[in-house]
């Protein structure tokens, strides 16, 4: 393994259970800030946070931006469209250019695995991975664990199913790691074409059917990207929906339903499931700002809390 230092959040592997809990506790206190009329604390006043997004993103980019602003940081947001990246500038040159502004943190979203790790090698800033290819999306997993913890308390022994396109999902990978670190049992479920070979090496179980979905305490549904149909990963969205769509008939009373968004209504989730009181989808979005505030705070202003697992 490459050595990772504690001032970055690149992978859930950078955190042990204690480090995750520390961030979640911090997020609880920031959630309180978000309830105030003036939603701002001066923790990062005078410091700069750069958001560098090479992929389309709504909720991740906006929640990082809001999180940094609520901590009083100066925020620069760069999207690949319309920037020098569009003119063929390499990631390294872009990062070194932005580093000249002496940012305290660079938040990066990239379509390529390992991009955040490379940025950490090229810039003195703290680097936060906002999604790198199909590899990891650690802040999504943290906000999911945060959301679940608020509902369930400790996750020890909780049985959590992740359903859908695991192969192409960074959310699934970070969640498998994070949920297991918090003591949960994880099962991944989806068409065999969309479950990575040897995924069990991550410590989870894998199954191609929803036959035992009733055993789950939490059903975490992944977005089914429509283009997968063209690559013959599934014969049709109709067949996918018949086999894997979570609706209120498949949802057992008491089960919690999660989804990282954006949802394809009528594909991986039925409308009635989305709107059911068992769905935590809105709470996940709401948690995004507080958890990302906590991550920024712990990396930039907090004690060396994340060092534990590094």
């Amino acid at each position, binding site marked *: *393994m*490459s050595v990772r230092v504690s001032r970055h959040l690149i992978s859930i592997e950078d955190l042990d259970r204690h480090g995750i809990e520390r961030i979640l506790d911090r997020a609880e206190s920031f959630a309180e800030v978000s309830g105030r009329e003036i939603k701002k604390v001066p923790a990062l006043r005078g410091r700069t946070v750069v958001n560098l997004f090479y992929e389309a993103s709504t909720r991740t980019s906006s929640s990082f931006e809001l999180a940094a602003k609520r901590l009083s940081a100066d925020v620069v947001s760069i999207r690949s469209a319309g920037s020098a990246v569009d003119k063929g500038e*390499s*990631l*390294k040159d872009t990062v070194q250019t932005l580093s000249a502004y002496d940012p305290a943190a660079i938040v990066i979203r*990239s379509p*390529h*695995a*390992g*991009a955040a*790790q*490379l940025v950490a090698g090229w810039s003195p800033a703290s680097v936060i991975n906002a999604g*790198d*290819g*199909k*590899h*990891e999306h650690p802040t999504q997993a943290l906000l999911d664990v945060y959301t679940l913890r608020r509902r369930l308390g400790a996750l020890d022994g909780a049985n959590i199913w992740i359903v859908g396109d695991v192969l*192409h*999902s*960074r959310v699934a*990978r970070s969640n498998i790691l994070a949920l297991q670190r918090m003591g949960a049992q994880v099962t991944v479920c989806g068409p065999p074409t969309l479950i*990575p*070979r*040897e*995924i069990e*090496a*991550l410590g989870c179980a894998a199954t191609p059917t929803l036959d035992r979905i009733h055993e789950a305490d939490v059903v975490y549904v992944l977005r089914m990207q429509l283009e997968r149909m063209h690559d013959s990963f599934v014969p049709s969205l109709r067949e996918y929906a018949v086999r894997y769509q979570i609706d209120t008939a498949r949802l057992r009373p008491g089960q919690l339903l999660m989804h990282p968004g954006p949802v394809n209504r009528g594909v991986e989730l039925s409308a009635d499931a989305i709107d059911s009181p068992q769905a935590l989808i809105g709470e996940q979005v709401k948690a995004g700002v507080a958890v990302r505030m906590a991550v920024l705070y712990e990396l930039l202003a907090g004690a060396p809390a994340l060092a534990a697992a590094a």
Partner: protein
Amino acid sequence: MSMSTYARHDDRLFCRELPQADVLLRNAQVLDPRSAIDDPHDILIRDGQIAGLGPPNSLSAPGGDVETIDATGLHAFPAFVDPHVHLRTPGQEYKEDIATGTAAAAAGGFCAVIAMPNTDPIVDDAAILRSLVDTANRSAQVPTGFLAAITRGLGGQELTEMAELRDAGALGFTDDGKPVVSAGILRKALQYQHLCGGVIALHEEDPALSGDGVMHEGAVSARLGLAGIPSVSESTMIARDAALAGYERARVHFQHLSAIESVQALRAAKEAGINVSGEVTPHHLTLTDDIVRTLDSRFKMNPPLRSERDRHTLVQALRDGVIDCIATDHAPHARHEKEVPFEQASLGTTGLETAFSAIYTEVVLPGELELDVVIDRLTSGTALYGLPTPRIASGEPANICLVDLGARFEVGADGYVSRSENCCFHGRTLHGRVRLTIAAGSVAFKAAQLDHRGALSRS
């Protein structure tokens, strides 16, 4: 055009005019499995030929023009040969060229290399090959052979003018870097081989199975979310093409084997009496996909590093002789082509300067493979193309490397002889370092340490 214009011997190896050495290697631990030697010897080289071999300190330099090198404590091996390198001439000289690539070969103990045709332009035309031969005759530091493309532009659609390319000096043919996807086109190349000769070497991969893959498909690709290349992408094509070779009674060589299933397919083909051979790289013998967890693009190559079981099977197959030889697949790339996220990085690692040391450190020292087997397999690659095999014996041309097995060094700490630095062993501490390479009778590489020893011994 008569071939003799370009091929100085019938051996189709080309290099600059080499000053023939007069050297006495004193008290070297000579290991040549083919000559059944594993003892200390003096080796006298006169005018580039091995003139005498005797017990330690028995030979003397018969004149002032013979340099004496004290080789006490050093091993003398027949110099290595590499049937698979990318020298990047023509067109990609910013990565490597014939001069720097063959200098890197010499620094790694190699006395002959065979260059692949996937350059820019591709070596798919006799005029291009002739200009390459001219360049090699001016600048190659060790004898260099060339494979030409099987299909024009490596496009997999039309055969090259194979007979004319043979006349211009091609040792054989390959579309290396790409598979010949069409069985029909490959079959015609195999038929045409009966006219023009030349080994047909195959990069085996089924693009439909490899897809967008960038690493071995397994637990590590599952963890990293990188698209995987399954082992069967390689092995199914080996099985297919071995069957074609058997049917056409053709001669086929399988390049850079990486997987258990490929070894099984090669073994089955050999047992069926088909005229096939295979090679394996130092990195596939020493590294596994586990190291790709670092997401360091130095570990991105095609075929990919596979599992520990695959690595172990490749080592055993090399020992058993199912795999015939070691080939580096030396693939230099500029820094900007590797300083990008893994999925975007160019494929390949340099290997000439570290081949012996890496295998010695990671496979011989742990006891997986005997040193004499490694020396045999590092010297057997050119014979597959009908070229002579380096031997340490009286009357043979001097192709010898001196290696200090006790030396330890950090790869890359002193830079590289190659123009590129994309070595998968970069930063690793390796044992065993080449100190001298005599290639085709000429001193092609001499380490500063050796001059120091020589000065000491003369004083």
